[in-house]
């Protein structure tokens, strides 16, 4: 997964890096399945690996010439970015490995079913998540309307320009 992620950000061909990104997303879904969050793994596969990747591929085919190699940043810039991000990796890993997590052993945990997630999403009691659920629905609606507006106004401008 790490190798695929590294290739996704460093490959010159944008179509290939999309496919590597797809492999990373499928690996994430595999981790979700391994820790027995089946609903989350399924959502990851359908929304990311199914929807978002297809969206990317479509827009690339609309916009880009696929055979053109991507322009890459200057060498010192890449060196600086690589140095800074490896510094960040080292610092974060040091913080993680020196912290003592209170891991709950597996036999004490109860299985989380899909209907638990559904009930928690719509509950308005103590452990309910109805408010973020509504907020996210408004956000999705706003994003949809916004995308339509962006697509429309420019078309009017083009007609006006003609």
């Amino acid at each position, binding site marked *: 997964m790490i190798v695929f992620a590294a290739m996704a950000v460093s490959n010159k061909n944008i179509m290939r890096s999309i496919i590597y990104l797809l492999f990373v997303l499928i690996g994430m879904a595999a981790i979700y399945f391994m820790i027995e969050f089946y609903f989350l793994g399924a959502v990851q596969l359908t929304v990311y690996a199914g929807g978002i990747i297809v969206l990317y591929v479509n827009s690339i085919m609309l916009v880009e010439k696929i055979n053109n190699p991507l322009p890459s940043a200057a060498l010192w810039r890449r060196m600086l970015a690589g140095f800074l991000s490896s510094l960040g990796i080292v610092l974060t890993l040091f913080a993680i490995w020196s912290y003592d997590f209170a891991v709950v052993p597996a036999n004490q945990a*109860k299985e989380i079913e899909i209907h638990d997630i559904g009930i928690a999403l719509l509950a308005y009691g103590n452990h309910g998540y109805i408010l973020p659920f509504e907020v996210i629905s408004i956000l999705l609606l706003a994003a949809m309307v916004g995308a339509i507006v962006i697509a429309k106004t420019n078309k009017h401008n083009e007609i006006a320009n003609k």
Partner: protein
Amino acid sequence: MISGISIYEILTVSTIIFFIGIYGFVTRKNLIAMLMSIELILNSAALNFVIFNKYLFPNELGGAIFSIFIIAVAAAETALALAIIINLYRLMMSLKTDDLETMKY
């Protein structure tokens, strides 16, 4: 939880993917490629939520639900950003960040 794999190893994986995403975001010069790096960053954050939920608080649901929200936000953000990018390409005929300096066309 996965038997034989501790929380530290999975957190290591998600940390490395996060910083690979940051590296890609800084070095890429194409708008779509930068968006892909953002996807990597969001994914590793969602993975962290789920892992903490599973290993530390296995009887609660917060992490799983929040990563569902992260996925929804990422989907909305990607759709909007791609709409903007395609329109920008129609106007400027380019997606390189060096060419896109003006804010208002």
